[in-house]
């Protein structure tokens, strides 16, 4: 039987569903607008974009380089704001996200969408004016892919949501590279591939510990649709592909000896933690504790460890590249 096509709900900008109904809500402050831009996600985006820009090894006017980084930062904030505007119904139902400004009702969906659209337009326009059209086009594509393709469509319709949607998070180093050189060679796409393959183990490790929330919100995350066992196996498979791929830049002239060592040791540790998670019962049903007073989440530690380590791993790889190419530029 043919599967019916998934309906994509267009935003109607009705008042946001509040996570805390009946509670008196204070007007939004500047902190809420900062939160709307997802500063933690933004910091990783900026860091990887800066690495792409520096790794290109092309001299660039420092003011224009700073402008490129600023545009990518603001563009990432725009994508985050649009995501919160469109996803407030899901965010309001999940413990991790229910205090976000739109989900909690401090900022309306229309205001969040307008904030994101204006920031996005400014960042793309300035990128085109200050840097080049390729970087501006890639930035536009990234924002639209994240806000429209991932947030409005993939997230609600397929367990491959974060796999395909991960392309948006993987593009910043390519944008950085394009900003510095005006083109995107194979090495830039290698950085893209590393982040692209890193995304599923990173997110699914988090989802294994909050599968119940995703189910409640109707989000077809992998643990909800295929179950915890299949998700743990897929995490392991992605990790086994990621670890050797992350070593490749050391042989294409992108990474030096420091990168080679970091990618081999870091990748081995990544695989080790993925094997440990695969052997655990992470994401399985909660069990009653020995005395019946508390419940035990099996494998929660293994999932948490891989999630935390995955951030350190990606940060470490890009930091080594940044230092190696930064030192080359200084010399």
């Amino acid at each position, binding site marked *: 039987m043919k599967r019916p096509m998934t309906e994509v709900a267009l935003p109607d900008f009705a008042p946001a569903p509040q996570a805390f109904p009946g509670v008196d809500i204070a007007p939004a402050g500047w902190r809420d607008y900062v939160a709307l831009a997802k500063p933690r996600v933004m910091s990783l985006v900026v860091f990887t974009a800066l690495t792409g820009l520096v790794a290109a090894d092309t001299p660039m006017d420092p003011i224009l380089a700073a402008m490129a980084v600023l545009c990518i930062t603001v563009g990432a904030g725009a994508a985050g704001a649009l995501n919160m505007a469109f996803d407030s119904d899901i965010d309001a139902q999940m413990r991790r996200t229910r205090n976000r400004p739109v989900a909690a009702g401090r900022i309306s969906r229309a205001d969040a969408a307008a904030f994101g659209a204006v920031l996005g337009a400014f960042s793309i326009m300035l990128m085109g*004016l200050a840097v080049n059209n390729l970087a501006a086009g890639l930035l536009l594509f990234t924002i639209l892919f994240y806000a429209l393709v991932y947030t409005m469509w993939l997230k609600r319709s397929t367990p491959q949501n974060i796999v395909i949607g991960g392309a948006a998070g993987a593009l910043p180093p390519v944008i950085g590279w394009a900003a510095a050189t005006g083109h995107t060679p194979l090495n830039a796409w290698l950085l893209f591939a590393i982040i692209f393959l890193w995304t599923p183990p990173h997110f699914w490790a988090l989802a294994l510990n909050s599968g119940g929330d995703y189910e409640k919100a109707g989000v077809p995350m992998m643990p909800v649709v295929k179950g915890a066992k299949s998700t743990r196996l897929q995490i392991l498979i992605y990790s086994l592909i990621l670890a050797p791929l992350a070593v490749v830049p050391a042989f294409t002239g992108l990474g030096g000896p420091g990168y080679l060592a970091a990618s081999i040791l870091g990748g081995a540790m990544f695989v080790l933690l993925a094997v440990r998670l695969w052997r655990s019962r992470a994401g399985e049903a909660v069990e009653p504790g020995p005395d019946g007073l508390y419940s035990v989440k099996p494998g929660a530690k293994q999932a948490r460890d891989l999630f935390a380590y995955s951030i350190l791993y990606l940060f470490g790889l890009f930091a080594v590249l940044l230092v190696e190419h930064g030192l080359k530029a200084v010399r």
Partner: protein
Amino acid sequence: MSDPFHEGQRAAKARRMRSWAIALGLIVLVALTFVVTIVKMAANAHHAVT
């Protein structure tokens, strides 16, 4: 009947702050565009000379 256009003190303050933030954002955008134009013009002039 309550006045639907009545704005509380907190809401008025928040609206004023938003207005200032928008004004500041526009000033920053104009300043950045000006700086970019100057840097690009200087680079073009340098290329023309060399």
